[in-house]
């Protein structure tokens, strides 16, 4: 493995220096951050709506056809009662009134109408919050607290299910092995293109011939694959660290469920199976994408084949319900054992606990053989395709030509 370290360092360093790597790497956590920020501001808007309303000079008019609204509460909110719906709406339209709530005769059949002046995307939600709170607080005294809790869905439940004589929490059980499925999805989505183009660059730049007098093709490919793995780990950390930090620091503000991480069941065997499938699948698709890149003269041409690979990888997602409900069906078996479609069905089935140990063993053996073959073919294709500057490598060239060195 002469010069492996040099290639590895060069590939990692130059990728880390690219702006595009960091833009892609941070795009996922940034999107997650934006979503959480919207949730945060939305939650803040709703919970503080009533408080804000009390503190602000806030002109509200109310028409109560239902007879449910408590007159004292109306006074507390400095609201006025209106008998003319249209006149009140006109006042809101003209900006003379901040908000107007119209409670219909039967709130269970008709909608409560809220008319208000715009105060911004995030703050507009508070009007509905106030209208809803007025209604809830008005009827609350006539119902006992227990009934209120039941009707508001504020009743806690504690469920214990059993499997093989042992307590079994299906949701919690899938978290640890399921992480590998999520990571695989993210890595292939974000790194697939980089895997594909990792070898086309040398060809497109006509640099390959000089390279091959200093390093074996196999070493070059392995160096590139190692660098991709390290970059994938960097990517995973960039995704996970902000999520974990965000969860630990802002859990309450984001209204996230309070997970007791220590309560997540750790089944070493299932985690090991998921981890093995994840690693082998990653290597299989790395080999496959690198091979495609090696066989085609340009990144543009390689891109055409990339779509086909993505269909194989992510196509099984359309049969998710089948994997969950009929794990023994023929289709599920085929998708689980065919190497190109196997990763998602296998990791999903293992996460939900319906992948038998026998199936797991067979699948792992198939994936291991496939990954080895894919990587070997990638090296062979790179070796043969390296000097094909203008045409796509043919199968005949790859497997029958004996003149070139492997």
């Amino acid at each position: 493995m002469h010069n492996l370290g040099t290639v590895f360092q060069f590939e990692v360093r130059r990728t880390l220096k690219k702006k595009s790597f960091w833009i892609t790497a941070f795009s996922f956590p940034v999107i997650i951050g934006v979503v959480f920020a919207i949730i945060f501001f939305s939650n803040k808007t709703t919970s503080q709506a009533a408080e804000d309303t009390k503190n602000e000079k806030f002109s509200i008019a109310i028409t109560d056809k239902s007879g449910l609204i408590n007159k004292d509460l109306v006074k507390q909110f400095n609201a006025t009662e209106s008998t003319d719906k249209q006149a009140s709406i006109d006042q809101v339209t003209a900006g003379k009134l901040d908000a107007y709530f119209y409670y219909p005769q039967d709130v269970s059949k008709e909608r409560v109408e809220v008319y208000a002046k715009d105060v911004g995307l995030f703050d507009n939600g508070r009007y509905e919050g106030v209208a809803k709170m007025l209604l809830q607080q008005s009827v609350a005294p006539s119902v006992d607290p227990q009934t209120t809790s039941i009707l508001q869905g504020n009743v806690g439940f504690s469920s214990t299910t059993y499997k093989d004589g042992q307590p079994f929490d299906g949701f919690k059980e899938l978290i640890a092995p399921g992480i590998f499925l999520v990571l695989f999805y993210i890595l292939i989505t974000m790194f697939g293109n980089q895997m594909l183009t990792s070898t086309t660059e040398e060809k497109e730049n006509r640099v390959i011939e000089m390279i091959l007098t200093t390093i074996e093709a196999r070493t070059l490919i392995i160096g590139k694959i190692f660098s991709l793995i390290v970059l994938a780990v960097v990517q995973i950390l960039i995704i996970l660290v902000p999520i974990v930090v965000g969860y630990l620091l802002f859990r309450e503000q984001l209204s996230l469920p309070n997970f007791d991480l220590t309560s997540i069941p750790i089944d070493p065997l299932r985690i090991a199976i998921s981890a093995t499938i994840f690693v082998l699948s990653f290597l299989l698709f790395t080999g496959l994408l690198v091979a495609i890149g090696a066989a085609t003269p340009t990144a543009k041409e390689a891109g055409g084949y990339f779509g086909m690979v993505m269909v194989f990888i992510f196509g099984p997602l359309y049969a998710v319900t089948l994997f969950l409900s009929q794990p023994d069906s023929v289709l599920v078996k085929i998708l689980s054992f065919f190497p190109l479609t196997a990763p998602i069905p296998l990791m999903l089935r293992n996460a939900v606990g319906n992948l038998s140990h026998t199936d797991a063993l067979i699948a792992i053996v198939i994936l291991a053989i496939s990954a080895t073959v894919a990587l070997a073919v990638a090296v062979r294709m790179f070796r043969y395709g390296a000097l094909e500057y203008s045409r796509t490598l043919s199968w005949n060239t790859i497997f029958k030509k004996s003149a070139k060195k492997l």
Partner: protein
Amino acid sequence: MSKSPTTQQNAVTVDHFRMDFGKKTVIKDLSFEVKKGEVFGFLGSNGSGKTTTIRALLGIYQPTDGELLINGEQFSVSSGAKLGYLPEERGLYKKESVIDVMIYFGQLKGLSKADARQRSEAYLERVKLSDKASTRLDKLSGGQQQKIQLGITIMNDPDLLILDEPTKGFDPVNRRLLMDIIEEHQRAGATIIFVTHQMEEVERLCDRIILLKDGTSYAYGTIAEVKRRFNGMSLDDIFIKVYGDENEPEEEKK
């Protein structure tokens, strides 16, 4: 396998080399030697198998038959041979900086990072490109990129310099630089294999030459010997006589 003393004295030994690509035979039976310290001209029309022979010599192609040796051994990237190779198809990592690419190749050629940096900086100084060290290669002109590629080729002070059509696409400034570099390495005792169509360069630089035709050696020896065989004709005239009957030269098909 133990090699004969003659083989070990040669910088390059090609012995009954044959190269097939599928059903097509590119090289039928080729044998020649390049002595240590000489400048050897490797001549032939396009498609005559010059580049194929070079690639087989450098282990990029596996020969169908025969032996191709450097310093008495088959070349491998870990053999320790100090080699400088400027291929016909040229290019560099265009999106990387000049200095990063030079250091990378220096390291691949066995230099330490510090040594590679020092040699790169010295070369950039020589070719007046020091101010471009941190510039991306694709921001340089074509001529400047040629200089960088040339610098990478000689960075490790090679004992064997293989230049495949080195002046192809070179402007006069870089052509002069190349000739200076060849002469410097010649004086330093390096062996130089020179693939070219430029007969005036062959006449000026080469000690011995080989003319390839139809996958075999058509003429081989010192320039004087080859000229004698063709009744004292100039190299240009010999080239036209040998290859003139070939119609539109075909690109080498690998």
